[in-house]
């Protein structure tokens, strides 16, 4: 569905953010991309959805293949119309527009395709949005805003959704609700997803494949079951060791040491 082959990405031709970065998302699967703040996860998604040039970001080498075609030079709106949609970090809903108008804006992704499943069908995944369809999107709660961001993506009848930190800033109960919907969408709509998360536990609950990113490089990859069994991941990402700050800092160092040793 999506192959990212050995890309190097920089901003302003100055800061090199991704170095020889490769991942692949298989059709129908949810692929998790985990890593600390600043590792370059969002940059990966922006590279795939064509947003990099807007921030003066450049893909220097390598290629990105979506559905059999290179998308390195394709404009963002055309990618959305081909079924590659990006749910951005921080939700980025249109706060001054009603919920319904947010969804109407998303129908532009259907340009040149036969009409999609329509707003009503999408509401079946998000009944809370239907109740608030005339409300200003800026007045929704964080969880509802995340739902709206995902509903906008669904309107586009996507083949692949790039989902950037859906759990960010949400209460645990809401995180569970959101991830239940993610799993359901993946199952029922057969949409592939590339899921960026810092909440590994939530991400693992819905994913099939996973990649760990550090400093713009993939340092670990595998099927979710393998990753769950990995000792480093248990201590560092799933917090199965002690949760106290001192200890987890040492865990980071231990993790990095092991990384270097493995290389």
């Amino acid at each position, binding site marked *: 569905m999506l192959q990212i082959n050995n890309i190097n990405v920089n901003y302003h031709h100055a800061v090199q953010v991704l170095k020889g970065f490769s991942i692949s998302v298989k059709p129908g699967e949810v692929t998790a991309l985990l890593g600390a703040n600043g590792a370059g996860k969002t940059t990966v998604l922006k590279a795939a959805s064509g947003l990099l040039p807007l921030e003066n970001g450049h893909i220097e080498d390598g290629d990105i293949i979506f559905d059999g075609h290179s998308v390195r030079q394709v404009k*963002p*709106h055309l990618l959305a119309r081909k079924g590659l*949609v990006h749910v*951005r970090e921080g939700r980025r809903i249109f706060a001054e527009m009603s919920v319904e108008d947010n969804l109407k804006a998303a129908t532009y992704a259907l340009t040149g395709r036969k009409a999609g499943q329509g707003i009503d069908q999408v509401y079946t995944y998000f009944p809370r949005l239907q109740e608030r369809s005339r409300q200003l999107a800026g007045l929704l709660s964080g969880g509802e805003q995340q739902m709206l961001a995902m509903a906008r993506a669904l309107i586009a009848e996507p083949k692949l959704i790039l989902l950037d930190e859906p759990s960010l800033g949400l209460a645990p109960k809401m995180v569970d609700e959101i991830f239940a919907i993610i799993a359901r969408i993946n199952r029922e709509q057969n949409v592939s997803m590339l899921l960026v998360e810092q909440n590994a536990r939530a991400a693992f609950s819905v994913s099939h494949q996973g990649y760990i990113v550090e400093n713009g490089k993939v340092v670990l990859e595998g099927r979710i079951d393998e990753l769950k069994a990995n000792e480093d991941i248990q201590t560092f990402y799933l917090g199965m060791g002690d949760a106290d700050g001192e200890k987890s800092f040492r865990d980071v160092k231990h993790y990095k040491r092991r990384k270097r040793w493995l290389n």
Partner: protein
Amino acid sequence: MAQVIQYLLNGIMNGALYALIAVGIVSIFKSTKVVSFAHGHVIMFGAYFYFTFAVILPGAEFMPDWVAKWEPEWLLAYKEGAAMFSPKAAIAAWVSNLPRIVLGLVGSIVCNALLAVFIERAFMRPLLGQSSLSMILCTVGLIWVLEGSASLIWSADIDQVPPLGPNFPIRFTVFDSQVFLFSSSVVNFVIALILFIGLMLVLRYTRSGVAVRATAEDQSTAYAMGINVPAVFTTAWVVAATTGAIAGAILASRNGLSPTLGLFGLSVLAVVLMGGLDSFAGVFIASMIIGIFEAFTQWQFGGEYAEIVPYVLVLLVILWRPNGLMGQAEIERI
């Protein structure tokens, strides 16, 4: 009392024109985040295009006579015996001008739209992704390009252009006081109001309006959701240039045609800043306030003050509310 109402009305008529000019600046800013300093000069081009299509072209050899002066039988019969300056005579004169007024408006709207597409493609599009400051500076440069090319293209003697509506004085009483207005001012007012309200309705209730509002709020997210953001930018420039063409036609018929039209348009930027760059409603209110304020200053202190006092007001408002009366707070100032 009569005079208060009289100047109030004058102010409102002028305010509507400011609003019509301002609508273009807001339209461009809302979608592109670029403040167009050249909008006044785009309006000036609209005025010259109107002159070209409503005066030069109808006077050309190959044009049938009725384009310049339409006088069907029934019109001659209608104006038979009408007194000079009577509404009847004015309406008859307007009807016989109608073909060239329509030709002038259509011509200036089309040409200005093409000019806008050219400006957007040639000067704005290559700067996409750069800071909006570079685009804003580019519009400043455009001022001289447009002014220079206008004086090259239209070097011929400038003639009177026909007003868009019939022109006769209307007298009426409000609260027992006699006031009067020119009918053409009323027509201009109505045109400005219709365009302004029409644009707001399109923005609020149509699907294209949704695309524009989405782009206005978050360009890159709108782009990633399938909205053709560069096309929205072009549309915004075209909307500005076509409303500007109508504003240009009105200004040329009211104050005569001259290169100073561009500077006048530029001065309306102050009104836009007062209302809030991204707020149609705020800019409408600001236009009215400035129009009325200007009229009263003119009345009390004379013409010289009328040119300064409104701008002092603008400065005070901006000191008090840096984003304008109804502007969004997070906007980066120019």
